[in-house]
């Protein structure tokens, strides 16, 4: 937000030219292509589904209220039925009894639809690594934005919501894997974004040599060691 204001000030002072000028104009003036205008309309008029699972639902409710207002981004009309909603915020822990219900809700929402997985519990099972919680909702439904926190602050959720809007408008902020095109949990930064580094190639080779994963064999060791 801040650097855009700085650039606007430079524009007014007239000392913005060359590549920056085109880029600024391109960004602020709407291109007339239908898709981008349609995406702009969709991004700014999202209707979230009134759907709350657990503690994150309380923070989701307080995001809709006056202090952290969701209406500033055009999304304060919460719709109760999935037919009229186009964003599902998975606010809370997803238990295995609720999983088919949430999957059904997601299926019954009309395209285009997006899902924000709010909080650690729905993103990765959070602190409840046990028999009752689905370890990460992306195991059962496609998720666009993962908002960390337990519960995430309403401001954090708003930031996630803005990222979703950028994603809808077609220029999503890349996650760290795409930015450094790393593989899996690999942390090596690339020399230059194009070519994979030696370590990444080694890791890729390591993966390919391993025999496929059978639940029976390796899981008991993992379970034993995890005890």
């Amino acid at each position, binding site marked *: 937000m801040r650097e855009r204001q700085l650039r606007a000030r430079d524009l007014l002072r007239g000392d913005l030219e060359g590549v920056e000028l085109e880029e600024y104009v391109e960004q602020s003036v709407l291109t007339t292509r239908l898709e981008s205008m349609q995406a702009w309309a969709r991004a700014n008029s999202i209707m979230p589904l009134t759907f709350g699972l657990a503690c994150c639902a309380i923070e989701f409710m307080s995001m809709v209220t006056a202090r952290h207002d969701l209406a500033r981004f055009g999304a304060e009309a919460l719709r109760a039925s999935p*037919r009229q909603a186009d964003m599902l915020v998975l606010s809370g822990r997803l238990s295995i009894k609720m999983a088919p*219900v949430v999957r*059904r*809700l997601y*299926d*019954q929402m009309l395209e285009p639809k997006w899902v924000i997985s709010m909080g650690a519990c729905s993103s990765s099972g959070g602190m409840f690594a046990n028999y009752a919680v689905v370890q990460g909702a992306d195991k059962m439904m496609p998720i666009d934005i993962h908002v960390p926190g337990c519960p995430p602050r309403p401001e954090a959720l708003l930031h996630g919501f803005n990222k979703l809007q950028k994603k809808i408008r077609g220029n999503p902020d890349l996650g760290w894997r795409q930015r450094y095109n790393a593989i899996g949990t690999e942390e090596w930064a690339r020399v230059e974004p194009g070519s994979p580094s030696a370590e990444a190639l080694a890791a890729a080779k390591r993966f390919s040599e391993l025999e496929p994963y059978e639940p029976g064999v390796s899981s008991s060791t993992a379970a034993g060691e995890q005890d």
Partner: protein
Amino acid sequence: MLQSYLPILVFAALGVLMGGTFALLNGVIGPRRPSRVKDEPYECGLPTQVTRSFRFGVSFYLVAMLFILFDIEVVFLYPVGVIVQSAESVFVLVEIGVFVFLLMVALVFVWARGALDWE
């Protein structure tokens, strides 16, 4: 004669035009991916349990009838509303008074019979 109707027609056409475009636009532009689950009725997130056909209670129909009855009354008041300004005669006022009074009698009767309070 037609002159005086033009504004209404233009207004109605604009209304239909705007309404139509938005309705069609939605159907045309919106992606369409039907799936079996999406067509099933939405029942709070559960597979539908609509077991057998169901007959609504009488009281629902009663309320509907009463509403239609008194709604028609309003429709009759419209033409009067148009001419009461130009007619400037007490006769129109009295006529409307009688009409409304008769329906008031019907309302009081229905109220006394207890059809309004929910069984």
